[in-house]
């Protein structure tokens, strides 16, 4: 691994925390409230449903690609 030439006294930008984007944070707060309202705070149940949906989406995408490949004679 090559030697880095990182200076011993870097300035502040890589040091600071993340800058919160108000719009994104408000969206996330709403998402968290939605989980709490619909699942009573049961994150496992929420993510089980979400992952299930996502896996299904991926499979349907794969099937679509397979269909395209078939129709293209591959």
């Amino acid at each position, binding site marked *: 691994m090559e030697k880095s030439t990182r200076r011993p*006294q870097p300035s502040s930008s890589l040091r600071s925390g993340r800058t919160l984007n108000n719009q994104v944070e408000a969206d996330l707060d709403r998402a968290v409230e*939605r989980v709490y*309202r619909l699942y009573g705070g049961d994150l496992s149940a929420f993510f089980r449903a979400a992952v299930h949906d996502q896996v299904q989406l991926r499979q349907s995408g794969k099937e679509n690609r397979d269909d395209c490949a078939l129709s293209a004679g591959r």
Partner: protein
Amino acid sequence: MIVPNPNFRPNPSRAVYIQGLIDDPMLDRLTPTIIGLQSASRDPITVYIDSRGGQVTSAEAILRLLTASNQDSASPCRLITVVTGRALSSAADLLSSGDYAVAYPESTIFYHGVRQTLATPVTVEFGSALTERLKISNDQSAMALARKTEWRFMFRFVMMTPEFTTLRQTTNRPSLTPLDSFIELISQNLSWYANELVKRARERHGRYHKLLDGALAAAYKNKVLLKPQQRPAQVESAIIKKIIDFEVRAHKNEPDWSFRTGGLARLNDDYFLLNEYISSSQSDHFKKLCKRWGPFALTPQETEGIMALPDDAAREEARLEKARRYFQPVWAFLVALCHALQEGEENYLTALDAYWLGLIDEVIGFPELKSMRLLSEFHPDPPNDMPPETAAA
């Protein structure tokens, strides 16, 4: 239903590429593109990374440019960072600086301490000063990494909380703390290298734990930290005295231990940690974090107790206080982990390691991993037995 949210999705049509050595020529090359993207809109910018690192000053300049505001003081463009192959050294710092950080599955991520390449002969005085500067710089870099990753790390912790009870039951260890449960559960998913890293972090955290329990508790007990009329130097002085007492007690069985032979450096470390601990735990970021995730971390009994309180303000205060008790130890462990990442030369992490350690948000191709994107994008169908007006709320 999954509704894609561009705030969590890499977008090659609004992207810059960090490929190869990070240096001033790279900064020169990227500057027009970054400015062009920011002028076109304030939508997220994706930063694709495949780099062995390079000059930290150039990496910082790129990051400063990427997070710049404009003449109307608009918020910085949201940054989505994506490692496609390697994110080593300062490229790893860039990756973790993303508001949302993604990794391709076979990526390698590597953090290390600050290094200095010298072209001139070194005197004792210069060597000592350099050692001190490098150490301070490492401490600061570790704290910076902790601040950048605390949201991800706490999210990981909260996501694991439902599994703590099962772990305690199956291993017959009912007194396992939430933090220990969390570390044990993530360790099951880590590579050998990452587990070695966690071991080092645990050792360091053990010392933090004693220090925070000892010196900080004593400072709070004497109300040292609660007197607003005091000058900062008075508060600092009181904390330093508590640390000195703590270290003397901690080394009572070591006759040769002294402040002159290493103890003073430890005092410096302790002070740095306590200072960060106090300021972080009182920061708005930390309060927001406790507010958002607190309800998921609390036990049903704790929630019931809070709900029994007479008014909203009291409930809010109690919720924050209870949540703080869960999240502060986790935060202290994260700091220990970030320090461990700055030590040694063996901190090579896989994409999955980086995910479980909260250094990135998502690994492409692993839909089963819980992510902030999924939280934002998944809109569940309301349960069938929910009244229509609630379901529509």
